Every structure is written in structure tokens, then in C-alpha cells.
């Protein structure tokens, strides 16, 4: 194949004015209302939003399963409508619902996938071995998928999405319904994957703590992208860090904080607490300028839950209803 130029690289995903309207007789539904997105190659991009926000429709348009009503989308450099097959060759997909053939073994599922994508026998053998090893299922390769646990099936699906060496991997709620250990393991695989190859990962999730694994995040609501930035920038944009101190002289500490930092502090639950914009930058000054003995410091960053609340007016669980396994995020 051709050498990859190291100059300005084409974005992995480029979306302009993408719109999807479902004809509904009297009340046509506008599921996606002219969104713009740009995902650079090699990034992990988080796509968040409540059900009905238009996430699934967007991902389906990007994966060439659904045609947009208007607007354009390019994935891996190809148009999702006019160059459908070219796009399909270059993307991997992990669906929200299970899409394995339960009757077949792990290896047969992967082999079928390799065949569907037209891999040569040698490429298929090599890739199947690699991806099975990556998700630690090598010793189960000859077992029927029927006997796999939910977490194993999910790992196998991720492996399958990678068999044909895609440039962009789409994951729709990859960790839904899985226990915390398995969720963590899946993010480990994804992280390892990003370190090995210049793959772009586009992932939707409900778990706000998982969004922290992403390089950038877009929050979608009512068919529109309401905000898009890095997790850090988004968290800074919604408010302040909270610093809690344990000292041997709280009175003096509060006085010094007012005097030297110009911030009002108070005592809550036996700790001196104050709100600042950038907690990490303030902590060193506390040690050098307070002249009191500091026993412990805690900095609490605003969580992505707070971000979501700020931009959509509700928490992600309010909009979804209770969800098993979704622990209170931020209380980590």
C-alpha cells in the first residue's frame, strides 16, 4: 500500500450538516438536526447523550447503515453514501446488541467475518490469532459462543470488529450490562489497541466515568451536538474544583486563605473547604503560603456528570431511568 504521509492528515471522521428526518405522516421526526463533527485520526472520541438524542441514528449513518436526509459525512476519507463499500472496508463495528452466531465457535465467527471482508487465508489466520490473543480468548477459540459469558461475548465482538484491521472502530455502548471488572478490562483492551496502531475509536456510552478515557467528547441532545471538547476542558467549563484541607489550625488557615489567596473558606465536616477554578494550581500555594501544618489535602474535580447536567439540564440517569451497574460517578 502507499506510504502514509506525515503531513496534515485527513480527519478520520468529518461530518457537515448531517441531518436525518424520519417521515412520520403528520409529525415527521427530526432525529439528527444538522450536526458537525470532526474526529482526528488516532483519537478516541466519546459520543454521549440520553436515549432518543440521535446518537444511534448518527452512528448508523456514519456506518453506512442508514442514509442521511441531508448533509455529508466522510469516514476514513470516503463518503458514507457514495463510497459505501470503501467506508465499510475501513470500519469495524461493535453493536449494542449481540451479533454473534451463537451456534458457531469463537474462531468460526471470526473466520466468517474475515471471509465476509475478503481477507486472504494467510491474513485471516494471522489476524484471528492476534485479536484472540488481545482479548485473551485464545484458549477458548474452539468453544461455541453459546457457552460464553456476557463479558467474553463482548470481548469476542470487539476482537471481531478488529479482524480486518479497520481504521475506525465504532463501538455502540460496548460495556452496557457488564460488571465493573469486565468494563475496566474492555477499556484496557481499547487503550492497548490505541497504543499499538493509529486507530480511531468512536464510542458511545452512558457511563460518564468511561467518557474520561476519551480524548474528546461530544454531548448530543435533541438531535444536536450541544458541546464538544476534551473531558478536562469540559469539566473546567462547568465550574470549580473543591479543595478540602485537614490542618492543625483551621482558624489560622481560613484567615491566611482569605488574606493570601483572596478566597473565602469555611469548615465543613471538620475540614477547611474552598472552591477554586484550578485546584491543582492552588495546592502548592497552600503549602508555601499558609504557614500552618497541613495534614491532608483532597481536590475534587467536577465530574462529567456535572458537565452533562449543565449542558442537557438533567443527569444522564434522569434521562435514562435506573440502570443496573451504573455506580454513582464522581464518588471514586
Amino acid at each position: 500500500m502507499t506510504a502514509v504521509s506525515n503531513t496534515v492528515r485527513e480527519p478520520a471522521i468529518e461530518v457537515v450538516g448531517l441531518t436525518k428526518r424520519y417521515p412520520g405522516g403528520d409529525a415527521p421526526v427530526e432525529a439528527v438536526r444538522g450536526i458537525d463533527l470532526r474526529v482526528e485520526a488516532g483519537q478516541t472520541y466519546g459520543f454521549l447523550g440520553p436515549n432518543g438524542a440521535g446518537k444511534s441514528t448518527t452512528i448508523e449513518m456514519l456506518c453506512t447503515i442508514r442514509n442521511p436526509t441531508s448533509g455529508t459525512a466522510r469516514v476514513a476519507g470516503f463518503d458514507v453514501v457514495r463510497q459505501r463499500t470503501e467506508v465499510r472496508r475501513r470500519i469495524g463495528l461493535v453493536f449494542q446488541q449481540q451479533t454473534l452466531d451463537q451456534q458457531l465457535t469463537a474462531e468460526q465467527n471470526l473466520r466468517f467475518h474475515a471471509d465476509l471482508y475478503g481477507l486472504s487465508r494467510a491474513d485471516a489466520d494471522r489476524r484471528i490469532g492476534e485479536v484472540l490473543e488481545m482479548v485473551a480468548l485464545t484458549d477458548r477459540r474452539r468453544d461455541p459462543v453459546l457457552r460464553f459469558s456476557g463479558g467474553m461475548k463482548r470481548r469476542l465482538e470487539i476482537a471481531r470488529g478488529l479482524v480486518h484491521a479497520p481504521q475506525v472502530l465504532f463501538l455502540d455502548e460496548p460495556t452496557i450490562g457488564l460488571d465493573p471488572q469486565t468494563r475496566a478490562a474492555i477499556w484496557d483492551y481499547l487503550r492497548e489497541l490505541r497504543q499499538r496502531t493509529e486507530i480511531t475509536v468512536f464510542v458511545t456510552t452512558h457511563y460518564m466515568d468511561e467518557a474520561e478515557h476519551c480524548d474528546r467528547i461530544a454531548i448530543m441532545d435533541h438531535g444536536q451536538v450541544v458541546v464538544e471538547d476534551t473531558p478536562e476542558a469540559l469539566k473546567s467549563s462547568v465550574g470549580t474544583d473543591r479543595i478540602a484541607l485537614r490542618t492543625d489550625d483551621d482558624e489560622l488557615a481560613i484567615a491566611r486563605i482569605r488574606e493570601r489567596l483572596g478566597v473565602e473558606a469555611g469548615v465543613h465536616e471538620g475540614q477547611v473547604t474552598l472552591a477554586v477554578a484550578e485546584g491543582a494550581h492552588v495546592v502548592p500555594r497552600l503549602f508555601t503560603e499558609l504557614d500552618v501544618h497541613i495534614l491532608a489535602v483532597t481536590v475534587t474535580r467536577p465530574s462529567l456528570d456535572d458537565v452533562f447536567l449543565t449542558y442537557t439540564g438533567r443527569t444522564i440517569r434522569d434521562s435514562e431511568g435506573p440502570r443496573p451497574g451504573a455506580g454513582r460517578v464522581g464518588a471514586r
Partner: protein
Amino acid sequence: MSTDPTTTDRTATARPQPVPLTVVRSDLAHHARATWVVTRRELLRFRTDRARMASMLLQPLLFIFVMGVGLGSIVDTGGDLSFQTFLFPGVLATSVLFTAAFAGVSLVWDREFGFLREMMVAPISRASIIWGKCLGGAVVATGQSLVLLALVGTVGIPYDPVLLLELVGCLFLGSLFLTALGVLLSTRITTIQGAMPMLQLLITPMMFLSGSLFPLGGLPAWLSVVTRLNPLTYVVQPMRELVLGHLDLSAGERARLLPALTWAGWEVPVGVQLLTVAVITLALVGLAARLFARTE
């Protein structure tokens, strides 16, 4: 592996850009290959499903021995020919009927269990998925009937390789037609609960009105018309003609057991009968592929 959850420094130069491994050759070759991949899955699934395999191999035996012997005791063929021999071609056709039609409807299962999506997003055409399903089902159904064909000797039909090959050909065509029917149904009906009764409703009359179990002569005029509209008739009739052609029958016996199939007085040649099935099958597959592409 890094355990640091924060964004690590990932410079683009350190990591290789994935290069797609997929090979898309000329269009027709690609379609053919994709079709074959889908077909092979059907075969693989059949092979791994022991219970399905066993029941489908035993079912035709039930037909020929239980039904043939049972009905044979009350039916008089009016000559030397045993009823089992007469019945045999019809049993062959009936044996592929259910297997093939159910194989076609398995598209509903694929959809329900999500596997269909895996095929839908692959760089292959919708038509090759449909063709793959149809061919796979037809091959499985035809393969199943080989068990029965191995037993032709027990009902007094000679082991003539040409006859056997011709029968396999007819069975394959019939299986393809029935699988296509099942697949077509699956493109419109999305639940298993809906598809199964509908399929039964379609294929049961087809089985009875194809001449598989009794000769089509001497039927009331309206029923006679229905049998001529039944595509399966044009599978059973040629097979019976092939089988009876290898036996010594008097002209009278032959006329009664195998009345000529006519369209408005014209005796339809075997070739035209088979061609009719082939054309209908192609139309069904084409229609299924079109509906499938539009709705999925």
C-alpha cells in the same frame, strides 16, 4: 500496557496506520465469493446442530415407511406397482419442502439474534446475502434427501446413476424455490411467531396439491386449476416421470398414475415444467433481494 488512565502522549509517528486487509476484486467475483461465504455458514450451522440434523434425516424415513406402508394397505394401484414406489418421488419432494422453507425463514432468526447486522455492514451486497441464504438452504435440503435416495432400492426403483443425478437436480431446484419462498417471507415478516404459521399456511397446501401424495387426475376442475398454479407440481411431476420411466408399466397404468400435465389442453414437456420453476425461483430471489435492500 499503561495503567495510567489519563490521556497518554500518543504521537502519531510511533503507531502504524491500519491498512485495510480487505480485497475487493471485480464485482461479479466479489459477489460470488460473498454469496459462497454466506452459503458456507448455513452448511456449518447445519453440521453443528446435531438435533436438527438427526430430525431432518429421520423425518423422510418416517414419510416413506410409515405413510407408504400405511396408505399402501388401503390404496390399490391397480397393477404390479406398489404404492410405496408411486409415493416415493412425492416423499422426496415433501422431505425437502420443510427443510428448505425453514432454512429460508432462518433469516428471521438471524435478524432477531442480531447476526444479520454483522452481514449487513460488511462490504458485500444485499443481494449476495439473499443468494447465500437461498443456496445454503437449498444445499442443506438437497443433502438431506440423499439419505432417501440411497434407499430407492427398497421400493423397487433401480440404482441408475443417471436417474439419481436427475432426481438430485430436480430436488435442488425445488429446494431453491422453497428456500427463496421462506426468505421472501422473512423480508416482510419480522417475528418468528408471525413467520412460522404463515409459512405452514403456504407450504402445507402446496404439499398436498402438488401430486406428491396422490395422482392429480380425476380432481374437480377448480382444484385442478389450483394444482397447475402450484409451482411444486412442476417439481413432483418431472420426478415421477423420471422414476416411472425406469419401470415397466402398462400404458393404462401409466396414464392413471401419471396423468399428463396440460395447460389449456397442451401437454407441458418436462423441460418447460422445470424451466417454469426456475423462472419463478429467480423472480422470488430477485424480489426478496429488492425488498431486503429497501427495508433493512
